[in-house]
């Protein structure tokens, strides 16, 4: 029984990481129909900002437990600011173009930003594991888990609930939903669609960066670490249904748990399992688990 519990905790933990990593991608696609490959670079930016700040924070003996707010906050602000600049000075002029062209533009941005990261931080790895160890551990049977994983799971839940609340209950969210469904009518009704796009893109980039910030204490921050994230995020988002928040959450949970079972019982298959889940889902639901209904214009 405890063995099964361990498998589930490992799965949920990985699912939380997948969700946090992918949610910004699905938000941007849902609102703007932009598949943002530069998501990977924003994740990396979040990691580098967090690891730099953590180094500064702990070397100056600031209150350790406030480091979480500092790390996540700094990552968020960095992601938001760079995302805003990117949207304001580049993407804004591309919306009339085909989705594939915009995808290629974001790919170019990804390549450029990755080099910018190397220019700023070089190629040396950095780590900042103090926050990971700070929260202590808990036990299941004789298995020890860092409480940091609970923070990660909690962050995923808060993000999921917060975004759902924002979209369904707030005025901003309702206006955003109308933009999602029909840009032209929304614009005709007096909604500043351009501003919504700018905010959405910046916020989506900030979510990618905060994912990096949350992950940083558990990893070594190295050049190119975002590449794997964009591949996995893309798999999660496609499986869940492009642009669907609940779809992304469900896909992350399925993939996380299935992967965990694989690691524990058939480790040879771990390499393929996430993409096998994606393929299996797409065979039966080609637009993903929760594809968004689209109004047909006549």
């Amino acid at each position, binding site marked *: 029984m405890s*063995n099964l519990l361990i*498998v589930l905790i490992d799965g949920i933990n*990985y699912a939380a990481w997948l969700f946090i990593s992918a949610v910004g991608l699905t938000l941007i696609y849902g609102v703007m129909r932009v598949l943002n490959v530069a998501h990977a670079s924003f994740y990396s930016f979040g990691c580098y900002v967090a690891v730099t700040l953590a180094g500064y924070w702990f070397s100056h003996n600031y209150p350790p437990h406030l480091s979480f707010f500092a790390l996540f906050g700094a990552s968020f602000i960095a992601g938001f600011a760079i995302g805003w600049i990117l949207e304001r000075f580049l993407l804004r002029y591309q919306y009339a173009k085909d989705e594939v062209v915009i995808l290629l533009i974001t790919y170019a941005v990804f390549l450029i930003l990755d080099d910018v990261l190397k220019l700023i931080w070089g190629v040396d790895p950095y780590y900042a*594991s103090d926050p990971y160890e700070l929260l202590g551990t808990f036990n299941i049977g004789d298995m*020890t*888990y860092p409480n940091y994983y609970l923070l990660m799971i909690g962050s995923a839940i808060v993000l999921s609930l917060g975004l759902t609340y924002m979209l369904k209950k707030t005025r901003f969210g309702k206006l955003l939903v109308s933009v999602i469904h029909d840009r032209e009518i929304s614009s005709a009704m007096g909604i500043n669609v351009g501003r919504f796009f700018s905010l959405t893109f910046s916020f989506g980039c900030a979510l990618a960066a905060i994912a990096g910030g949350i992950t940083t204490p558990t990893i*070594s921050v190295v050049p190119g*670490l975002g590449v*794997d994230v964009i591949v996995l995020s893309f798999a999660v988002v496609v499986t869940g249904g492009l642009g669907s928040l609940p779809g992304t959450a469900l896909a992350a949970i399925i993939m996380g748990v299935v992967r965990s079972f694989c690691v524990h019982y058939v480790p040879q298959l*771990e390499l393929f399992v996430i993409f096998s889940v994606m393929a299996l889902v797409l065979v039966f639901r080609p637009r993903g688990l929760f594809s968004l209904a689209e109004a047909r214009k006549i």
Partner: protein
Amino acid sequence: MNLSKKLIASIVIGSMMGVAQAQAPAAPAAPAEVKIGIVSFLSGPGAAPFGVPARNTAEMLADAFNNAKAPAPYNVKGFGGMPVKLVVIDEAGSPTNVVTEYRNLVQRDKVDIVIGYVSSGNCLAVAPIAEELKTLTLMYDCGSPRLFEESPKKYVFRAVNHATADSVGAALYIKAIKPTAKTYSGLNQNYAFGQDSWSDFQGAVKMVLPQLQEKTSQMPKLFAGQYSAEISSLLESKSDVIHSSIWGGDMEAFILQAGPRGLFKQSSVILTGGEVSMFRLGTKIPEGTIIGARGPYGVYAPKSALNDWYRSNVIDRYNAPPNLAAYQMAHTIMATKLAFEKALAANGGNKPSSDQIADAMRGMTYEGPGGVHKFNLSNGHQATAEMVYGRVKHVNGQIQLVDQKRFTPDQVMPPDGVKAADWMASKKQ
């Protein structure tokens, strides 16, 4: 009339100058230089642990040689008096791209010698092209024993151990310090090097410690970053020994995630390439972790004047001690310099060809900062060196490697002419 006179005068004077020029002694030709292509990861996850330290060492040594600042037997200026010029390129990219870049180095940049390659896939892809282009090529880091096992080479050499030494040395070390161990597991990256390393370790265990039972083999993908489930599985296995050839950021993430979960207390974890991150992680590496360096490199290097000179120069220039990749590069360049100078002398002081340098290198014995190495395998193309392992101990906030055991080259590398896998299989008990 005036014009005709001027024309005739010009022709006469021009002719005289031409004759004078032709009769003047020729201006001394620019001294021949030795162009060496250095190929190493300068971007991507392999850059910091392997590519950049190796590139740094190459540059430091080239400067030292050109200024005749290296100690004997490397004190001859440049390579036999000829200045050394490095052409450094990035190894990043697909093997196809790496092969294209190799051709560019040889055919466009006209390098005399190529030294490079961290990735086994890249060195296996480049080796046949080196043979085709008849260019002396030394693999400085890649560990695949298949490099010479699949077909003999004429122009390709490796001046350091191959990866079999990692696994056999690790098994011998376990036998020496934990003879009562009963079970083992693995965590290796799911690509060629990770799979080969695990397969080698399985073979080495059957050869050296046949009583050990395998529990689980975890193969996360390269650069996975998240190892929570793998660590749980390894904890559940309660293995006495855990083998891992994981490297770079992946290894650091694994240590950071597994340390607080007590994996290193429960099991003896062997990190075959752990030395590359040792100084950066410091006491984050838990006590008892077994660290390898594919040879007598880094802190395992024997005490010698040459090693002292090498370490102090790298530290002075880059503010960090040289790691195993840096040592491997140092050994490779130094072996090349000695072979070049030997070939130069045999060639009457004229710049030797690739064939002549290869003849000089084949079977050569040389001493580098990591001690004496011999090109005694694969028809004299594969060098061997002793292998060292040790365990981490925290002392005053620093880590030291205690319980060091040194194994002779013939203990950790297969005999000449025998494939590594066949050697390990033949010794099964």
